């Protein structure tokens, strides 16, 4: 089991390296000279040359990459061009906000999404299933930022029951609305996925076997079908993770929550490259590692993979 975990983690190393190469490339295809951007047009040629040496910009590109990678690995993602503060520290400061939002949304979507998906599949072809399917279809077409805006308008502006913007005192109240919006948005995805996986599984022979044993339908659905569905749903969680990260970028922007997503967008807007790429690298690494965990979870959930 440990060997399997190590093998999967080792397998993600090439991908992480590729992630770093892409990040580095994006950083350096930036039009214009970063040095000029840093010190302004009016700096003397000596200052520029010095800074150039200091930043290692006079080195050949592969050495620059290695130097950058070494620094990035030791947690140094450079300094923001806007605030001058170390990017890594800014990111760390924002992680808790995003983590809380993502966790709330993930919990909501796991309960609602899986529940609705299983329910709908178990009523396949009946009115309840049609209603669910139609709702998912309609809801899935609404962009999360529009849904968030509408929620904000209804609950914050009209009903005034929940805070709509910012972190305030940092209490959980400020996470309810964004968490719910993002959670419901993810639920749509989860429910569609779960439903189609469950429909595929309910057709399988072993479900008929379970019914032939005289197990009540509830047991057939949850013990036999859902357990198998979980194996597939776990593998599809990767897509859900991507949605979670993307959704949190949008949600944080709308609700003005100082998380990584908001930070990324602000930095991109200000063309603060070290900050943009720092966020980019950080989130991609989290995404790759999370996907690796998902793979591992899949392997553990399926005895065919676990035991070979």
């Amino acid at each position, binding site marked *: 089991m440990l060997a399997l975990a190590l093998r999967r983690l080792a397998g993600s190393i090439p991908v992480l390296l590729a992630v770093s190469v892409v990040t580095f490339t994006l950083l350096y295809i930036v039009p214009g000279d970063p040095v000029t951007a840093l010190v302004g047009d009016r700096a003397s040629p000596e200052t520029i040359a010095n800074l150039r040496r200091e930043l290692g910009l006079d080195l050949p590109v592969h050495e620059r990459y290695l130097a950058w990678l070494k620094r990035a690995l030791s947690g140094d993602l450079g300094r923001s061009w806007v605030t001058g503060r170390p990017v890594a520290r800014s990111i760390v400061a924002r992680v808790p906000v995003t983590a809380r939002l993502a966790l709330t949304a993930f919990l909501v979507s796991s309960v609602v999404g899986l529940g609705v998906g299983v329910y709908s599949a178990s009523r396949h072809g009946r009115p309840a299933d049609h209603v669910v399917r139609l709702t998912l279809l309609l809801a899935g077409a609404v*962009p999360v930022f529009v849904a968030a805006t509408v929620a904000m308008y209804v609950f914050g502006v009209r009903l005034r029951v929940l805070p709509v913007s910012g972190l305030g005192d940092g209490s959980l109240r400020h996470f309810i609305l964004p968490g719910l919006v993002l959670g419901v948005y993810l639920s749509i995805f989860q429910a569609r996925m779960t439903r189609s996986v469950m429909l595929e599984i309910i057709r399988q022979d072993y479900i008929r076997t379970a019914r032939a044993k005289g197990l009540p339908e509830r047991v057939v659905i949850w013990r036999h079908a859902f357990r198998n569905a979980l194996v597939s749903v776990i593998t599809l969680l990767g897509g859900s993770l991507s949605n979670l990260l993307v959704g949190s970028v949008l949600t944080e922007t709308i609700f003005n929550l100082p998380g990584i997503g908001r930070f990324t967008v602000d930095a991109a807007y200000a063309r603060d490259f070290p900050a943009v790429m720092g966020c980019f690298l950080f989130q991609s690494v989290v995404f790759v590692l999370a996907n690796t965990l998902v793979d591992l979870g899949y392997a553990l959930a399926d005895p065919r993979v676990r035991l070979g």
Partner: protein
Amino acid sequence: MARAAGLPMAVAGALLLTLVALAAVAGPWLAPAHPDELSLAESLRPPGPGHPFGTDYFGRDVFSRVLYGARVSLAISLSAQLIALVVGVALGAAAGYFGGWVDGAVMRLVDVVMAFPDLLLAIGIAASLGPGVPSVLLALGLVGWPGLCRLVRGEVLALKERDFIDAARAIGAGDLWILRRHVLPNVAAPILIATTLGVGSRILQEASLSFLGLGVQPPAASWGSMVHHGLRWLSRAPWLVIFPGLAIAVAVLGSNLLGDGLRDILDPRLRD
């Protein structure tokens, strides 16, 4: 059952998409005003007889802007999906059919692109190249192809296992003959479905990027950027958000309905 539901879904989807396309094509004739025509006296008017969707802060007619936005949104999404389609199908078919190092190389590339959450990659590109239509196109094309590539590769791999490919080889058919005569016609349906659904994704992604202010730049306006700008007036003029938001939803719903409907109609596994 599923098949029976497929047709009405596909028709409804096609109708919605036609509506959007009509708005894009006939926008200039349908719009009551020029989308960029300022009229500060008319600032933030609610929807009414003169302005069916109301006006924005600068007094521009929201209905006209939504119609013109359809052009921008559709043009970008369709072009990006076209890029994704060409790249994805070519690489996917090659990887699946020839296997070996071709497959290895293509799939590693796919892994790398897929290692980034799609919008994040688009943000990175938009930030690097500067926001604007070219970088949006590049970004959306880039995030779109790996999905199609994987799909086509998987379908081709599954087809290769089927006896009729071996049967074609056994009567003396060469690789190109088999690809053209037997592989492509059989992957056409899944490609069509994925492309239709992909257009919806691209519309959403373009809207998201523009909503973040990293897509289409003023004075041009796409639906996403209209929501972006409307957000500031949310408490006073919610229609600035609602109508462009609704337009996005209609377009995405159209392509999802059409895609899902086509899947129900074309998927042989659902046939009786």
